[in-house]
C-alpha cells in the first residue's frame, strides 16, 4: 500500500486506540481483570447471579499474614449470609484512605488507631455510630470500658475498638544470662543496670548488642516506659496536664543517660541496620537484650520461624513504687465507617459480625492481639494465640491506663514527639525539655 493509504490506516488505528483508551479510562477499576484474583470473591456461590448481593468495601492497613487473617474473617462472613459481599483491600497507606474518603471514593469500612478519633471526628471522616447502635440495640457492655471510650468524642461514638493493646517487656534470655541475670528486671533501676551490662560495644564505639529497648526508636518506647513507671499524662477528661511527674522524668532521664553513655550516633546506626518486625530486626537477630513491644511480636516471631530464646514480663515499675507495677499505656486499633460510605448498613452488619466473640477471637489470636471484648478474651481461640498464657494475665493489671481524648490530640502528639526527639538527640536536657513541654502541651488542652 502506498504512503497515503498507510497514513490513513495509521490515523484510523490511532483514532480507534484513542477511543478505546478513553472508554476504558472512564471505567477505571473495572479493567482490573488482568492478573490478580480478588481474594474474597465467593466463587462457591455458583448458583447466584452476580450482583444480587450488595457490596461492602473494606480497606485495611494490614498486609502480609495479618491481612490474610482479616481476609479469613471476611470469607467467613460472606459465606455466612446472603445479603452482603465484603471485598477486602489492603491499602497500607493511611493517607490514601483518608483522601479517598474525603473525595467520596473511599471504602465503606476501614481501620485505624484510636488516637485519630478526635481528628477524624472533627474532619468529618468517620460516621458516628450512635444511631445504628440504638436502632439495633447493640450491646456495648461487653467491651472493656477503657477501650470503648477511645472511640468516643464529643459525646458521640465514632468507632469500635478491636483490641486493647499495650507494650510488654520482651527480653532475650540468653543475653541476660550471659551477663549474669536469670530474671528479668522488675524496677527501673534494675532495668538500667541490665541495659548497661548487656550492651556490647565494638572497638570503634559502634554497638554490637543493645541492652536498652531503644529499638525501633526511643520515641516508640517512650510512652510505654513512662506509663510502665506509673506516669499519667492527663487527668480524667483531659482537663489538666499531669505530664510532669516523677515517672515521666525518670523515663526521660534514663533515655538521656543511656544515649549520653553510648552515643547517639552509635544508637542511630544500630537503628538503621534493620527494619521493625523484619528478619533484620535486632531483637530477632539476637542483638537486643530488652524490648518493649506489643503482643504481636510473639506472633511475628512464630510466623517467621525465628529462633530466639525470649521471655515475657510486665514493664518495669518505678524504683520504690511497687504499687505501680504492671503499668502500661493501652491503645486500640479501631474500625470506623466512612462518612461517605455508600453502604452503611452493609458496613455495620460486617462490623457486628467482626466484633462478635468467635470471629473477633479468631482474628485477634491470629494477629497476636488482645481483643477488646470480655467474651472474645474468654474464647478458646485465644488460647491459640502465641504466648497467651503469659500475656493474658497481664491484661488484668489495674495500672493500665489510656490517654483520654481531646480535640487537639494530634497536635499534642506531634509536639511531644518533636521535643522529645531533640532530647533523645542530646540537643536539650530532660529538664529543659520538661519545662518546654509543660508550657506548650497545656495549650492544647484548651
Amino acid at each position, binding site marked *: 500500500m502506498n504512503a497515503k493509504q498507510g497514513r490513513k490506516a495509521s490515523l484510523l488505528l490511532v483514532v480507534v486506540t484513542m477511543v478505546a483508551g478513553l472508554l476504558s479510562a472512564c471505567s477505571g477499576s473495572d479493567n482490573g481483570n488482568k492478573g490478580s484474583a480478588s481474594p474474597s470473591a465467593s466463587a462457591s456461590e455458583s448458583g447466584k447471579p452476580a450482583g444480587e448481593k450488595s457490596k461492602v468495601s473494606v480497606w485495611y492497613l494490614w498486609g502480609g499474614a495479618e491481612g490474610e487473617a482479616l481476609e479469613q474473617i471476611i470469607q467467613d462472613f460472606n459465606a455466612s449470609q446472603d445479603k452482603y459481599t465484603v471485598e477486602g483491600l489492603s491499602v497500607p497507606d*493511611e*493517607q490514601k484512605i*483518608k*483522601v479517598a474518603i*474525603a*473525595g467520596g471514593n473511599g471504602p465503606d469500612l476501614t481501620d485505624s*488507631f484510636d488516637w485519630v478519633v478526635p481528628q477524624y471526628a472533627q*474532619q*468529618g471522616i468517620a460516621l458516628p455510630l450512635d444511631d445504628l447502635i440504638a436502632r439495633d440495640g447493640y450491646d456495648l457492655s461487653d467491651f472493656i470500658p477503657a477501650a470503648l471510650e477511645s472511640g468516643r468524642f464529643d459525646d458521640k461514638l465514632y468507632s469500635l475498638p478491636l483490641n486493647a493493646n499495650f507494650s510488654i517487656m520482651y527480653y532475650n534470655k540468653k543475653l541476660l544470662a550471659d551477663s549474669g541475670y536469670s530474671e528479668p528486671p522488675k524496677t527501673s533501676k534494675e532495668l538500667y543496670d541490665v541495659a548497661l551490662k548487656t550492651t556490647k560495644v565494638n572497638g*570503634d564505639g*559502634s554497638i554490637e548488642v543493645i541492652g536498652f529497648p531503644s529499638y*525501633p*526508636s526511643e520515641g*516508640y518506647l517512650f510512652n510505654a516506659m513512662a506509663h510502665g513507671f506509673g506516669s499519667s499524662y492527663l487527668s480524667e477528661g483531659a482537663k489538666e496536664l499531669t505530664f510532669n511527674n516523677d515517672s515521666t522524668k525518670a523515663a526521660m532521664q534514663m533515655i538521656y543517660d543511656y544515649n549520653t553513655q553510648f552515643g547517639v*550516633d552509635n544508637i*542511630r*546506626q*544500630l*537503628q*538503621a*541496620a534493620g*527494619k*521493625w518486625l523484619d528478619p533484620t530486626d535486632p531483637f530477632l537477630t539476637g542483638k537486643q537484650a530488652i524490648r518493649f513491644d506489643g503482643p504481636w511480636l510473639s506472633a511475628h516471631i512464630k510466623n517467621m520461624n525465628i529462633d530466639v530464646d525470649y521471655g515475657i514480663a510486665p514493664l518495669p515499675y518505678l524504683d520504690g513504687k511497687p504499687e505501680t507495677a504492671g503499668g502500661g499505656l493501652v491503645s486500640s486499633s479501631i474500625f470506623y465507617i466512612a*462518612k461517605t460510605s455508600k453502604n452503611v448498613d452493609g458496613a455495620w452488619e460486617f462490623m457486628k459480625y467482626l466484633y462478635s466473640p468467635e470471629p473477633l477471637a479468631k482474628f485477634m489470636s491470629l494477629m497476636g492481639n488482645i481483643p477488646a471484648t470480655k467474651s472474645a478474651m474468654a474464647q478458646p481461640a485465644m488460647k491459640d494465640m502465641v504466648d497467651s498464657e503469659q500475656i493474658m494475665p497481664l491484661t488484668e493489671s489495674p495500672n493500665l491506663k489510656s490517654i483520654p481524648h481531646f480535640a487537639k490530640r494530634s497536635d499534642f502528639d*506531634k509536639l511531644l*514527639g*518533636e521535643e522529645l*526527639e*531533640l532530647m533523645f*538527640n542530646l540537643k536539650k536536657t530532660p529538664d529543659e525539655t520538661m519545662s518546654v513541654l509543660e508550657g506548650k502541651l497545656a495549650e492544647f488542652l484548651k
Partner: protein
Amino acid sequence: MKRATLTGLLFSSPFLIGFIAFTLYPIGASLVYSFTDFNMFKSPSWVGLDNYRWVFQEKDVWKSIANTLYMVLFATPISLIVGLLLAQMLNMKVRGQSIYRTLYYIPSIVPAIATSLVWMWVLNPKSGLINTALGYLGIRGPNWLLDPVWTKPSLILMGAWGAGGIMIIFLASLQDVPRSLYESAEIDGAGKVRKFFSITLPSISPIILFQLIMGLITYFQYFAQAFMLASMTNSGANQTMAGPEKSLLFYAVLLYREAFVDFRMGHASAMAWVLFLITSIVTYLIFRSSNRWVTYGGD
C-alpha cells in the same frame, strides 16, 4: 487576516481548552481557597488573610523553606556541574561512547522509588557501600539517613547520581558548538582549560541558563524522593513525613501534608501562592542577570 486568526485558534484549541480547564480555572480557584478555611467536606468559609498570616508565622513553614533553600542552593549547581562534566567526558572521541552514555544516563531514568530503595542501602550506616568504602580508608561514615545533618546531603548525592538527563542536554549542545571556534583558538595557542572557559562555556550559556532555571524550579518543588525517604525511615504510623528533626520537611512535602493529611486546604493554597511568588521573583532575577553572562549563538 481573519481566516488566519480562525485557523490559529483552531490549531490552538486543544491547548486552550486544557489551559482554561487545568490552568486558568485552578489558578483562580486556588487563589480563592487561599483566603478561605476549607477542608474537602465543608464548604469554604472566608477567613481573609489568616492563611497567609499562618504561612509567615508557622515554624514548620520556615523550617520547610530553609530545607528547600538548602536543596536549591546546593543541589542545583552540583547537578549542573556534574551533568556538564559528564557531558564533556562523553563528548570525547572514544570508542564505546554510546555504552558509556547509556551507563551514565540510566540512573536518571530509574524510577524514584527504585532509586530511593537502592540508595537506602548504599547509605546504610553499617553495611552500606559508602560507609564500607570509607571504612577501608579508616573513616567512620556518618548516619546518612538518620542524622539530621546528613539527610539532605544524602538527597544531593541521589540528585547528582541522576544528573544523566541534564548530561544529555548538555551533550547535545556541546556537539553544536562549531568546530571552527575551537580550531581558531588552537591556532592562537589556547590550551584545554582556556578553550573550555572561553569558548565552550559561553557557547552553551543559553543552555546553562535554561537548565539553571529548570533546576531551580524543580528543587523549589522537590517532593517525590523526600516523600519516599521520609516515609521509609520511619516505623509505624508516623504521619509527620518530616524525617529526623524535620530535616526532610520540604516545602512541597509540607504543602502536601497540609492538603491531603491534615485537610487544611486553605493553608496549602496559601503556601502554593507564596511558592509561586518566590519562584517568579527568583526566575526574573536570574533572567535579569543573564544579560551579563549569557551569549546567544551566531555572534
